[in-house]
């Protein structure tokens, strides 16, 4: 490989350049082959300790990381925020310094506070991988999304990708936006005006507030989960109205190109942002995203561990 990797942390996509993103994707292709074998295990992280520290609960991301770590032969410990000493009033910094003192090599963390990973990475020597920090970033989700698109189209350059839904509160949208921009895609962010701020235009993406504009001409559309609590907070009137104006269903899907990919980071609110027929239809790559996620996380763990 012509480019070397020297980062012990994966904090945000914004910190990476296009060549580094491509390196992760290339490495993930190799690990994807491993995952498709009968024996799905390689010894590259043997003797390394990975701590999955999920201060904010997660099911699918944690499972994906855990399986990725097992397939790389790492030793694994799982801690959740509610059972850690955080619940007793210990600071985050003290908790991670204790984890470090146990000679952990890598901390995979999910946290509700934006920037929590950047904060701890400054203070500890172990690698820090961001498994989601509030609405700020979810870099491995973005990497698995661009991996999935690249696998179908060969390259992201010049593709039109639309991210649709609650952009304001979405770490997936932000990390995807940076990854797509760095790889040369044209990005559209779409959603109700209350949930899709115009300020994003300042970094060179298109912002629109109607679904049709986001669907026409798109090579891939990424639907985001709409959370019911946003309705209570007054961002939109009802999930029914949301699905009527922003949901992808048989009716709105007619604006999609035949070859366009339908993506979703999960978990899906069926028939709210995405109708069952489309989620299970021929354009959907949602379950491939899940499979690819593991390969991408194996690549990230492998590369960052190599920089320790």
């Amino acid at each position: 490989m012509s480019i070397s990797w020297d980062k012990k942390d994966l904090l945000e996509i914004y910190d990476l350049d296009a060549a580094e993103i491509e390196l992760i994707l290339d490495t993930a292709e190799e690990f994807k082959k491993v995952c498709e074998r009968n024996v799905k295990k390689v010894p590259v992280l043997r003797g390394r300790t990975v701590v999955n520290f999920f201060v904010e609960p997660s099911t699918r991301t944690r499972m994906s990381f855990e399986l990725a770590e097992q397939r790389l032969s790492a030793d694994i410990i799982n801690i959740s925020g509610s059972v850690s000493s955080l619940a007793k009033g210990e600071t985050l910094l003290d908790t991670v310094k204790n984890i470090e003192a146990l000679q952990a090599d890598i901390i995979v963390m999910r946290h509700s506070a934006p920037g929590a990973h950047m904060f701890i990475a400054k203070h500890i020597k172990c690698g820090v991988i961001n498994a989601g920090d509030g609405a700020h970033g979810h870099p491995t989700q973005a990497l698995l999304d661009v991996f999935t698109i690249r696998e179908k189209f060969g390259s992201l350059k010049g593709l039109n990708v639309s991210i649709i839904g609650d952009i304001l509160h979405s770490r997936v949208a932000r990390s995807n936006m940076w990854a797509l921009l760095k790889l040369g895609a044209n990005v559209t962010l779409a959603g109700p005006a209350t949930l899709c701020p115009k300020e994003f235009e300042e970094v060179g993406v298109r912002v629109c507030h109607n679904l049709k504009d986001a669907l026409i001409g798109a090579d891939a559309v990424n639907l985001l989960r709409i959370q019911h609590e946003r309705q209570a907070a007054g961002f939109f009137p009802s999930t029914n109205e949301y699905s009527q104006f922003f949901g992808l269903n048989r009716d709105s899907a007619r604006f999609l190109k035949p070859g366009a990919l339908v993506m979703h980071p999960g978990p899906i609110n069926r028939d709210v942002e995405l109708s069952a027929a489309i989620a299970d239809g021929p354009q959907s790559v949602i379950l491939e995203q899940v499979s690819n996620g593991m390969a991408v996380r194996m690549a990230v763990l492998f590369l960052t561990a190599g920089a320790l």
Partner: protein
Amino acid sequence: MKTRNHYVLTGARVVDPARGIDEIMDIGVANGIIVDVSETKNPGKIDFSGKVIAPGFIDIHVHLRQPGNTGAETIATGTMAAAAGGFTAIVAMPNTTPCCDTAGTIELIKRESERNAKVRVYTCGCLSKDSAGVEMAGIGSLKNAGVVALSDDGRCIQNHELMRHVVAYAKSFNLPVMDHCEEESLKSDGVMHEGKWSVLLGMRGIPSAAEELIIQRNIIFSRMFDWKIHMQHISTRESVEMIRRARARGVRVTAEATPHHIALTDENIKKFDTNYKMNPPLRSEADRQAVIEGLRDGTITIIATDHAPHTVTAKEVEFDYAPFGIIGLETALPVCLTELYHSGILSMSELVSKFTVGPADLLGLKTGTLEPGSSADITIIDPDEEFTYDVNTSFSKSRNTPFHGTKFKGRAEATIVNGNFVYSRRTE
């Protein structure tokens, strides 16, 4: 620095905006009072050539944390930091624990200040009981206890009916009302300015409108009762504009700007350093420019620090969980000399006025001038010294500053309260 009872400060440029003086001249001090040089007897002479001598600076917005949070600051440490920053007097904000909603807390602060304060400590009472915004505080008793103003700083009375009664009542006791202007439903759980950077960083925003709605309310009440309402730490372009228009119509509103809103913007938050977290938040570059223009054209008559100490433990956490606020007493003058004076935005006289005439007018104090007969409260400035700020040299108990490692031009040289040098960078 040891001085005789009579001394003369010589060789310095004397800047006294209250009297329109800006010239090299000598200043005499006798027994704690500024006097004509001819009235000093066998005075010691202290040469301050190349320096600026100004009336004692007053910081009307300081959190001393005593009583209640003496791990972060005390009256002794906070006022020493004030002295080192060139301030001869400060107004202690009332959000202590317990807060200053009764005469007892005011008396405690006054007693402690008499024992341990390095500079003059003026007290400020709460507008509402427990600053909870529900019932009016005992404003008359607070006046009797000696407060110079009222504020619920850190909070803002949301009930407009209560606020209008407070303004009317405060006027009858001749106490200016100072307000932390913030509409709480709009601020909600925001942690930084709502704008490009909050959107990109995925952080909950505090919209400019949260400040502006209350500024407008206060302008209406100030006009209604013809009484002084002072807008604390204003931060947005529209706030400046509303206050500009109101003052042009003769409404008795005033406003203060903080050094951090003069020097910094929300873009600084992209590394999630909690030393950039304060309330009101750092705003956009356009807002910063508007605040500077407000200072330049006289809309904003006061610079105040909002010195808000927090322990390292409290601040060294996730950005979401960190308390709002930074220390500022020792960096105010360096920031303002660098950003406003050396950049050519304000003359030395205009800059000095923001720390002297502006605060003294608002509070009705007789200080803020070097006129003979005044108490010898004097700030001496070295306008040209270039240095890099090291927070570890701070006299404050806390270390929460975004200016550690920043290069500045100009700083306080010495501080005189009541004729006594309470701070001096001279070694003799």
